[in-house]
């Protein structure tokens, strides 16, 4: 099984990081695929909660979006959004939340709103959706970024949609986040991790053939590198077979 695509690499890497996690909030795209793979490999008891209110989904097909009605058929529960946002998410029932972003900073703050000037932006992005709530209320956050570049990993966000706990502390004047914020960033180059409120993202692992210098060059700040930088094991034959043949045979997310 050579020719692993970047999407496959990301899905496999994210799935492995889900070991021992229990309740995961997954947005559409690669997170859904990663959680499905984790269910079949490292974390059989893992449960996905979707923003659309579905919990305990057992889709016969890979869902095409988080609001795919086929997620409901055969699911264990579907809650209204008030219940989902107030009782499940704000109620601290989520161990890991997946988020994407256009920009990330060294403490794991995320921008999914605006590139450029606020009043007349260069690019108007989708905005928060539930990201602000996921960041504030999940135990920890995993971020999957398809492309690791200095335009994405930035010294300063153009707009801070979902703040890191450190930024929330600095801002004060409101409820502080329940969780740790971003603890894992999984990219096509490797994995960055952080834990405490003042910890910066640190490069802890690289994919085979990637160097720390390569990652530092693709990062807009002076990225720390772990002393014991690891090399990630490439996707196994089993993982790739599950992804390609069972979970996403039509390559909806493995594009």
């Amino acid at each position, binding site marked *: 099984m050579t020719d692993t695509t970047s999407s496959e690499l990301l899905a496999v890497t994210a799935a492995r990081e889900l070991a021992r996690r229990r309740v995961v909030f997954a947005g559409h795209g690669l997170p859904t695929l990663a959680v499905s793979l984790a269910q079949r490999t490292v974390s059989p008891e893992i449960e996905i909660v979707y923003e659309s209110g579905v919990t305990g989904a057992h889709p016969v097909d890979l869902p095409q979006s988080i609001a795919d009605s086929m997620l409901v058929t055969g699911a264990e529960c579907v809650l*209204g959004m008030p219940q989902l946002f107030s009782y499940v*998410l704000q109620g601290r029932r989520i161990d890991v939340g997946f988020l994407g972003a256009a920009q990330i900073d060294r403490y794991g703050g995320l921008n999914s709103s605006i590139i450029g000037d606020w009043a007349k932006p260069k690019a108007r992005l989708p905005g928060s959706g539930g990201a602000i709530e996921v960041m504030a209320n999940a135990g920890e956050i995993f971020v999957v970024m398809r492309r690791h570049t200095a335009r994405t990993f930035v010294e300063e966000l153009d*707009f801070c949609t979902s703040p890191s706990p450190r930024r929330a502390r600095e801002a004060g004047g409101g409820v502080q986040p329940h969780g740790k914020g971003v603890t894992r960033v999984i990219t096509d180059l490797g994995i960055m991790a952080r834990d405490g409120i003042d910890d910066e993202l640190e490069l802890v692992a690289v994919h085979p053939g990637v160097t720390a210098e390569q990652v530092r060059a693709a990062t807009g700040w002076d990225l720390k590198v772990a002393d014991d930088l690891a090399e990630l094991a490439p996707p196994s034959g089993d993982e790739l077979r599950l992804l390609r043949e069972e979970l996403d045979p039509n390559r909806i997310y493995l594009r």
Partner: protein
Amino acid sequence: MPTDKTLSLAEAMTRYVRDGQTVAMEGFGHLVPTAAAHEIIRQGVTGLTLARMTGDTLVDQLLAAGCVTKLISSFVGNSSAGSLHELRRRIEHHDPEPLEFEEYSHGGMVARYAAGAAKLPFAPIRSYTGSDLVALNPQIKSVTDPYGGGEIHVVPALNPDVSIIHAQRADRAGNVQAWGMLGVQQEVAFAGGSVIVTVEEVVDDDVVRSDPNRTIVPSHVVDAVVVCPRGAHPAPVQGYYDRDDRFQREWSERARDAAALRAWIDRHIRGTEDHAGFIASLGEGYWDRLEIDEQLSTPVDYGRRR
């Protein structure tokens, strides 16, 4: 002896939707009131403040048709299918004119509708500390927890002049039943001044009354019931039809070209009489792809006294 509230889509919109109002149209990727939005375009309503959590093709269409001057929302992408280019032109280039955008997170919008439904002035929420959204939107304020927990952000209640939702079915009096992903359908209905519900079908009272827990909005809240099959397309309706992913993806492509988008609206919306006409305009056999098979729920026993 309940009132019969069924109206045609055109009648319902004429009666309840006026230029300049705040109109909420909700449905979270499911039960989206698309047909109602099309009718607003046909009637040439203008100056609306549109409240809708999730931007999607419906929003792009209402913007391109010139119906909307202000948007209240928490997500303005087109699901996983790409961008809303008309919306982006309005915001990024003020083309053809600027769009006022009052922005929240999903949690904030949900809380706003719930507060509106409950006629509370505001709802507290554990979000927003450290987010730039607070600087962008002065409507996000805070209060001091009188139990000693410090400051907490609040969002103001949202009470639309008109709330429009889609659902699977209702009786003629307006008891609305829905299943699958329910989004904020219940909250936005209770929050609305006038409430219009489009449904796949109107059913006999007996059907509704065989399962009262399935009713998400009781009749006394509803002003108009509109029979409108396939009224949520390209969103799905649980048990009725599938999501039209191809349409969503094509929209993102089409909307890159402002002229092409407007031509599409002229042909498929303004150029059709009603929603049946819209569906027909998509072409022969178009719907085949969206048909689904039946999977029934196990009935539950409500019981009756001997």
